[in-house]
């Protein structure tokens, strides 16, 4: 600590008072995601009172709940995107942000993920991918690599993992990116792009679990993971020129898909209601 009086990070004003330190394990990427998110909100000069955070169940769902100071809807496992869709339809002018984990969003929540992407609902979704079900003690997840031993794959994982970002892009997401918690500056930039994009924005954030997943893969600390991300990451511009073999085991980072101006779900729905209610006025029929 510096000899002069301690000053604290001004981004703390975005955190519910009295709640730091977070309950995250030491080195958990969730804390870094929270930090980057606060920075993104700050740089965009967004008013948190014009935002609503919707989360699911799991460690990553605790990133905004209770830490980020804004309206927060902490929902059931896997359904945050569905709850968020209901919120988004009934609010206009509020930014609806979903932050949850890979198990929550792509496992139990997979169906809601692909349909919201298909609809291109104007949501900002950050899926924090630590490749494990962390909160429950380290069970295999749909994102866990092959052969990894977890508490429920003690003899090795026989399932290949999802490439969730690609899944979302294929399903219809209109801003899709992947970054890791090593790429903090890029992540902030990407979060800003996601928050300002109108349509289904999705960032897969590869993030260390320094307890459950660390144990599974023989790492000891956040630094081990960050060094690994640094080494294995390859930017999309380079990845496009590489073969599948060369990309084996690599983490492709960057904006993987960006489509501006695609029809957005709530806009279409509002347009429909406006048109139909205007038409109803011009006839003389009653409800039936």
């Amino acid at each position, binding site marked *: *600590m*510096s*000899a*002069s009086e*301690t*000053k*604290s*990070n*001004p*981004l*703390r004003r975005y*955190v519910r008072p009295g709640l*730091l*330190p*977070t309950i*995250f394990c*030491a*080195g*958990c*990427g*969730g*804390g*870094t995601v*929270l*930090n*980057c998110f*606060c*920075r993104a909100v700050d740089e965009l000069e967004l008013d948190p009172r014009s935002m609503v955070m919707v989360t699911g169940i799991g460690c990553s769902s605790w990133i905004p709940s209770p830490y980020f100071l804004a309206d927060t809807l902490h929902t059931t496992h896997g359904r945050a995107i569905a709850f968020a869709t209901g919120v988004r339809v009934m609010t206009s002018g509020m930014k609806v942000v979903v932050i949850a984990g890979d198990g929550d969003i792509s496992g139990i929540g997979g169906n809601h993920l692909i349909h919201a992407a298909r609809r291109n609902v104007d949501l900002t979704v950050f899926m924090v991918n630590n490749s494990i079900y962390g909160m429950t003690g380290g069970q295999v997840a749909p994102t866990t690599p092959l052969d990894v031993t977890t508490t429920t794959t003690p003899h090795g994982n026989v399932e290949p993992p999802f490439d969730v970002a690609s899944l979302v892009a294929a399903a219809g997401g209109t801003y899709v990116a992947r970054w890791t*918690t090593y790429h*903090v*500056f890029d992540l*902030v930039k990407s979060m800003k792009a996601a928050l300002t994009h109108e349509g289904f924005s999705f960032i897969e954030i590869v993030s260390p679990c*320094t307890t459950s997943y660390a144990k599974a893969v023989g790492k000891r*600390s*956040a*630094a081990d993971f*960050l*060094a690994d991300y640094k080494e294995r990451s390859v930017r999309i511009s380079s990845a496009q020129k590489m073969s599948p073999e060369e990309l084996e085991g690599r983490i492709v980072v960057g904006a993987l898909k960006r489509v501006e101006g695609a029809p957005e779900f709530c806009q279409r729905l509002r347009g429909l209601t406006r048109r139909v209610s205007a038409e109803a006025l011009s006839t003389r029929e009653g409800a039936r």
Partner: protein
Amino acid sequence: MTASAKPKRARRSYSVFVDDDVCDGCGVCVFFCKPGVFSISRELSRRGFFPAEVLQEEECNNCRLCELGCPQLAIYVEERQS
């Protein structure tokens, strides 16, 4: 604070603050910091962690990777008014 020898041109300097009350010694700042500003203290903080401590503040180049990467928002880097 150690006084460093003044170079030919005045160099900006930065104060690096680590909040001991939220730091849990995860080492992310140590990893990120190229110039080696941080180390992990050998003394327990009052919360029972070995927190990060500022070892070489004068080496700070204001990259702010530590500030942004810190999972507990424990770090703040501020330019010193000369």
